Structures are given as C-alpha cells and as structure tokens.
C-alpha cells in the first residue's frame, strides 16, 4: 500500500522540462529534454541540428577561396581558428610554406581571438548565474580586444586575416605598441575578474557542479579547457605545434586542474588568459621581419594546389579542432570533414547534467562553452543522401566508439 502511493507520487512529481531550442540561457538553439523531479534532474536528452547549414556540402561545391570564406562563417567566435586550420591543410597539400612573419601574425590573431572568446565565456557565465555586473564588466574588457582586431584586421568579428600562403594584413609598430598596452589592461582586468570568481557568491554556484571525472573525460574524448579541467593535460599548441607555437613553446604552459567541476572549467579559462597574454607579448617581441605572404595572387596559388588530402588540427579556444581536407586537383574540394571541439564536448553534458538541479543546467551548459553553430554544422553525418539526420546523445556516443 505504502509502495503504491510512493510510486504514484513519484509519477506526479516528475515532469518533463523542455529547455530550448528557444531559451534565453542558450544564445544558440539546441534542445535539451530534461526530466526532472522537483528540482533534481533525472535524465537528459540532447538534440542538436537546429542550426545545421550544410557547410561541408556547400564547401564541396565551391572553389578553395570561396571555401575559406565559408569556413570562416562556421563560427563567429572562433572564425580565425577555422580558417587557420583549413589553410594549414591546404598549404600542406600544396607544399606551400608561408613566411615566418605570417606565421607569427597568425599566432597573434589566434591568441587575441582566444582572449576575446574566453572573456566572452566568462561574461556569459556571470550572466547565467544572474551576476549582471560581472557580465557587463567582462564584456567591457572584451571590447578592447575587439578594438585591436578592428585596428589590425579591419573587422571586429570575422577577421578574414588568413589567405593561402600567408596573411592579409601587416602589423605596424604602432599597432604592436597598442597591443601590448591593451594586453596589460586585460591582465589587470582579468585579475579582478578572477577575484570576482573566487568570491563567495560565484564560487558557491560553480564549485561541485557538473562533475566530470578524469576517467569519463578520457572515455568521452572531451577536448580543450573541458578536458584540461578534468585533469587531462592536452594542448595541441604544445603537443603538436603549428604556426609559430613551436618557437613560442617556452612562453606558455598548459593549465590543468584536477577538480573537473564547472568552477575548474571556468578557472582554467581564466588562467589561460594570463598564459595567452605571455604568448602575445613573446610573439610581438620575437616578430621577425619579412614578407607576410608568398607575394603571388591567391587565385594562382589556389590553382597550384594538387589533388591530395591532409589532416590539420589547431587548438581553438574551445579545444582541439580537426579538419580533413581532400582537394580535387582543380580548384575545388572533394571532401571536407570538420570535427569541432563543441561536438566532442557536448556529449559530456549528459554525464554532467544528471543528478544536478535545474538551476545548475545553464551553468553546466555554459561551462563547456558550447559553440553550437560549430557543432550543429556537423550533425548531418549522412551527406551522401542529403538527408538531415538528427543525432541524439546516444547515437553520438555510439559513433564515437
């Protein structure tokens, strides 16, 4: 008798809470079906694909220079990572070697992009826990980085810095000076933001929330700051240096934390901000003189790229980004395959979310810094039939193993 009543009560108390695709905590649409009992999350179903745009398909129908434009628009936050990764693969296929200065400039923009991305995440994190002031403060600091972008590349968001065989814009000494000045500013601001995050009200919301053990992190193949916060020490910049990271190897270290909770993931990003300020300063100090590209028209360079394939990877702000590029020997692509960091990270959400409270859901989702415009592009696995296939978390996991 008692048992029966309990079961009924349970059924009454648990109900399905749809989070998304349109939800203020998610700046981008994705769907979480959360089964809750009072405040506790019992089960999560993840659904991606709302912003799937078929970029791989489009890239295969365009020439290489148009594809650069397209890959830049995969994501507005890590646009430089995407083009760098793509162009590295093309240069590998074509046997082109960009000049040293171009590599340093790529690295510089890369790290500035990481600064803007991490500051953005810290601001969004503050917004999710209802701390508007910190959000405003962080985003005000981020504007300074965007100003730098505007001065160096001409754009705030899509920098269009990379071309085949080099970069588009050179850095004047005045810009370099300003960059160093802004980096000093950012360092001071980041220190203050770090103090904010270490303060009691924020730490209370973040620590112990969304635990991901080192074992799980390893099993689920998570990448980037999410992995590094769970005790995995892995960074493409150190382990497989690209651009100028080989030369700058001594100027930074890989940040890793053992705790594996949302607070650790946030802290890793804050500490990475300090590291990247070092990288920017070292890159500017050692910036070699010389040309910034191969001095040939990109169209001619594009035509010179033979048939072939290459894999390229970079450490985007959110983690390891992998491009597989197969050129067709003309000026187009035969196959483009992109594995974005968010796709690797988003499956770990299920592990983190189960057992938490409703109030923790936005915090946890933000803590992996999902960039769904990246991840959703890849949801379509079945590209031959042109069928839009929505992959849920279980299927994704099966695909992984």
């Amino acid at each position, binding site marked *: 008798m008692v048992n029966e009543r309990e079961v009924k009560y349970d059924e009454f108390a648990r109900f399905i809470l749809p989070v998304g695709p349109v939800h*203020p905590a998610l700046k981008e649409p994705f769907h979480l079906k959360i089964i809750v009992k009072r405040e506790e999350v019992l089960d999560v179903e993840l659904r991606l694909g709302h912003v799937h745009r078929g970029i791989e398909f489009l890239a295969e129908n365009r020439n290489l220079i148009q594809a650069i434009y397209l890959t830049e628009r995969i994501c507005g936050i890590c646009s430089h990572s995407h083009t760098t990764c793509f162009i590295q693969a093309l240069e590998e296929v074509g046997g082109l070697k960009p000049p040293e200065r171009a590599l340093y400039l790529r690295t510089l923009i890369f790290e500035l992009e990481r600064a803007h991305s991490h500051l953005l995440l810290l601001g969004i994190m503050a917004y999710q826990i*209802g701390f*508007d002031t910190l959000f405003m403060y962080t985003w005000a600091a981020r504007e300074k980085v965007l100003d730098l972008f505007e001065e160096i590349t001409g754009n705030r968001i899509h920098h269009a810095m990379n071309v085949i065989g080099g970069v588009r814009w050179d850095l004047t000494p005045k810009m370099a000076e300003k960059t160093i000045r802004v980096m000093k500013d950012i360092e001071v601001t980041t220190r203050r933001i770090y103090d904010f995050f270490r303060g009691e009200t924020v730490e*209370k*919301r973040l620590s112990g929330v969304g635990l991901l053990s080192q074992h799980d992190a390893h099993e689920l193949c998570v990448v980037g700051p999410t992995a590094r916060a769970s005790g995995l020490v892995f960074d493409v910049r150190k382990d497989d240096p690209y651009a100028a990271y080989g030369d700058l190897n001594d100027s930074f270290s890989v940040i890793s934390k053992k705790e594996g909770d949302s607070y650790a993931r946030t802290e890793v990003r804050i500490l990475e901000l300090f590291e990247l300020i070092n990288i920017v300063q070292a890159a500017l100090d050692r910036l070699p003189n010389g040309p910034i590209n191969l001095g040939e028209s990109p169209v001619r360079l594009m035509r010179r790229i033979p048939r072939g394939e290459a894999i390229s990877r970079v450490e985007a702000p959110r983690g390891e980004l992998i491009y597989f590029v197969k050129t067709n020997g003309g000026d187009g692509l035969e196959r483009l395959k992109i594995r974005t960091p968010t796709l690797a990270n988003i499956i770990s959400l299920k592990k983190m979310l189960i057992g938490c409270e409703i109030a923790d859901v936005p915090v946890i989702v933000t803590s992996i810094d999902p960039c769904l415009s990246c991840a959703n592009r890849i949801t379509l696995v079945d590209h031959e039939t042109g069928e839009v296939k929505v992959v849920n978390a279980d299927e994704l996991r099966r695909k992984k193993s």
Partner: protein
Amino acid sequence: MIALEILLATLPLVFLLSLLFEGIDRKVHARMQRRIGPPIIQPFYDFIKLLVKENIVPTTAARSIFNASPSLAAASSIVGAAIPLANLIARTGIIGDLILVMYLLTMSSIMIVVGGSSSGNPYGAVGFSRKIMMLIGYEIPLLISVVSISIKAGPSLIYYDIILAQIKSDKCLACAYISSATAALTFLLCISAAVGVVPFDIPEAKTEVIHGPLIEYSGPQLALLKLAKSSTIFSLSLLAFTLFFYFPTIYELSIVLGEIATLGACLLGSLMVMLLTVTLPRTVFARLKIGQAFKTYWFFPLPMAITSLMLSVLGW
C-alpha cells in the same frame, strides 16, 4: 470614512511613486555598472506600452485564474502600499492594519505565482514551487520581526502607533532597543527575497526558468504584474523605514515646514532603504540556488528574528 477617502486618494500616488522608485533603481543599477542607463521615467513607458499591447491567453491556461490573478496581485500590493502611506498622511490608523498590510503583500506575491502556474507552462510550475519554498524561507522571519517591533511599541498592531511610539520615545526604535535593531536587520534582509530580486529572484530567474510565473503573460496582464512587483518594493521599503527608522526629527519637520516635508523625508528615507536592500544586492551578488537561499534564510534571519522576539518580550 475620511480614512477611506484618503486611502483612495493615495492610490494614484502609490502608482506614481512605485514606478518612480523602480526607475531610480534601474538608473542607479546601470550607473553602478558604468552604463548610462534608462531614463528615470522608463517604467512609465514600459507600463503604458504593455497596457496598450495585445493580451494573449494561452489555450493551455486555466482561463479564469490566469486572467484574475494579475489584477488581484496588483490590487493587493497597491492597497498594501497605500495603507501605510495614507496612515502617514492622515496620522491615524485602524486596529490591525499592520497585519492587513503584511497579508496583502504576501497575497500579491502568491497571486503572481498562482497565475503563473495556471498558465500550463512547465516553467510556471517550477516558478510556483520555487516561490512557495522561498515564502516559507523569508515570510516567517519577516512576520516575526514585525511582531517583535509591535510588542515593543505598545503592544499595538496599529501601524501609526509604532510611529507615535518612536516620536514619544524621542529615538527611532532601531536605535532605542537591541531587540528592535535585530528586528530591523531581519526586516531589511528579508526585503530582497520578498520582492524577488537578485540574489533571490530564483522563482523568476531569466536564464533558468525564463521569468518563471511571468512567462506566458503578455500585454496589460504583464503590466499589472510588473506594477505589483514595483509597488511591493515601494511598500516594503516604506514600511522598513517608518517602522524602524522614523527619527523624531522627521516629525518635527512638519512643525517647521509643513506636512509635506515629513512625507518627503519618509519617502527619501524609504528610497535609501530601497537602494540599500534592492539595488545594491542585485548589483553585487550572483543569484543563489533555491537550496542555498532557503538555508541562508533559516540560518541567519530566522534565528535573529526569534532572538529579537524573545528580547522584546523580556523588555530589552
């Protein structure tokens, strides 16, 4: 009967003042974030705009409750704010009006969540359960602190009697007795939860439950709910100031400068109370989780309120 007429006359005044208070709150909040912020009359724009907007009732909603609750919420909180204001102007009171005011303010916040939960939206239901939990958290210390101070001032449950007691004893109550000081602190701590702002806006958290109970409301209904919230803020800060910090000099002002001066001083004082208890916390704190908020209230204000009650019974 005269009291009733004054009460009716104060209703528009409450409407104006509570929206003005909200505007000042938003402006100061923005300035603290180094923004320019909206104009001070922004809440009036918002209110009028919402009033002339289309009203949508979702098909899943329990129609009658959904439609009735915003009006009830707004009416009870406006009357709850008008009674103390009218008493201040008329310098009189009715037996038990303090209890009535507290009841109306609680009623208003309950009506908001009842309306939200009748909308048929799961977020409204989550907001409802969160609000009820919050009510248990803050309502008890809030009421105990009021009881404690009414014992000190009489004992009397007439709002104006408490003010009279402060004028007679030549000191504001919070300065005069330890018990009242504790009660004042409890009351101030409870304000931000009672009006539901960060860090205690848990039932209406935008990023978690999408405004919770307010999610399905639109147009005039939403305007009324917003009005209910801002007049609750006004009423509670007015109560906090006049019950605990009514310095006798404020009364003496009326002898020199007329009654308007007394009223103005009270409003200025309650503005300060609002800035301290509503604007400041919502600028410098992050939102708490429901469990943390509940614990916060049961570990600090509740023991404080009980201590204050015991002290005031003992005569401290």
